[in-house]
């Protein structure tokens, strides 16, 4: 899947990945996609809740090698 910006949030605990993502999405234009990589297991639920609250679309959420990858499309 292609993306327009990438955010490395590895090693960070909630709420930092969310705050960084919020900032990164702010710099995108509508329809662009942000890829986020995080290691906090809580980030799975957090990004679901984040997208629900902000109206951005969670395109995918996957685990690979102890890290979690999210693709979020700016609304």
């Amino acid at each position: 899947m292609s993306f327009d910006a990438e955010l490395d949030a590895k090693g960070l605990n909630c709420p930092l990945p969310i705050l960084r993502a919020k900032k990164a999405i702010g710099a995108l234009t509508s329809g662009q996609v942000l890829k986020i990589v995080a290691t906090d297991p809580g980030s799975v639920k957090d990004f679901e809740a984040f997208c629900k609250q902000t109206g951005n679309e969670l395109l995918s959420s996957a685990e690979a090698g102890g890290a979690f990858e999210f693709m979020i499309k700016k609304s």
Partner: protein
Amino acid sequence: MAKRLSAEERRASIITVAKRLFARTGFHGVSIDDIVSEVGVSPAILYRHFESKEELYQAVLQEFSATRESYIEAVVADDIGFEQVLRGMTTVFVSSITNHPDMLKMEMHSQLDSSASQDFFLNRWKSFTDYIEFSLNELQALGKIKPINAQAAALMYQGIIREVLLLKCMQHSDRLKDIPTALLVDEIITLFMKIVEPTR
């Protein structure tokens, strides 16, 4: 004879009792026999649900994580600054402990037990230390605040909040009985913010 419960209800009742006992005397202070006699079942029934005491302890921690505090609402509001996020996160965290004081008791025991569960509890505090360290370093880099040792500030914050929780949730200190926890925490954040000086 104990009432017949479904497997799920039985499992939940074992966790509830185990939580109370682990909070009282710590992981090493509780035996499987203590737990089964309190639940009113045979050890065989307990082992049907949990292979070992370790597994049962993990299940108790798991239950706490299921009610894991979500900071989302506290942080997604527009144009929210360091102080507001810190206040929001702290409110969520403090109420999660005042609602589940057994969690704090288990944390205190785990400090002495040197068990793997220490990581579980450390990780909960890491949300604060991470947030404070990163934000203060970022604000300094942007020249918005005067130089400050962000790591020391984060540790200081964690220490104060932990002490408030210990006094209010475990020792029920007389000295602080007239001030509600939320108000006390509010005042402490106000004091903490005074050490974070903006540049003029």
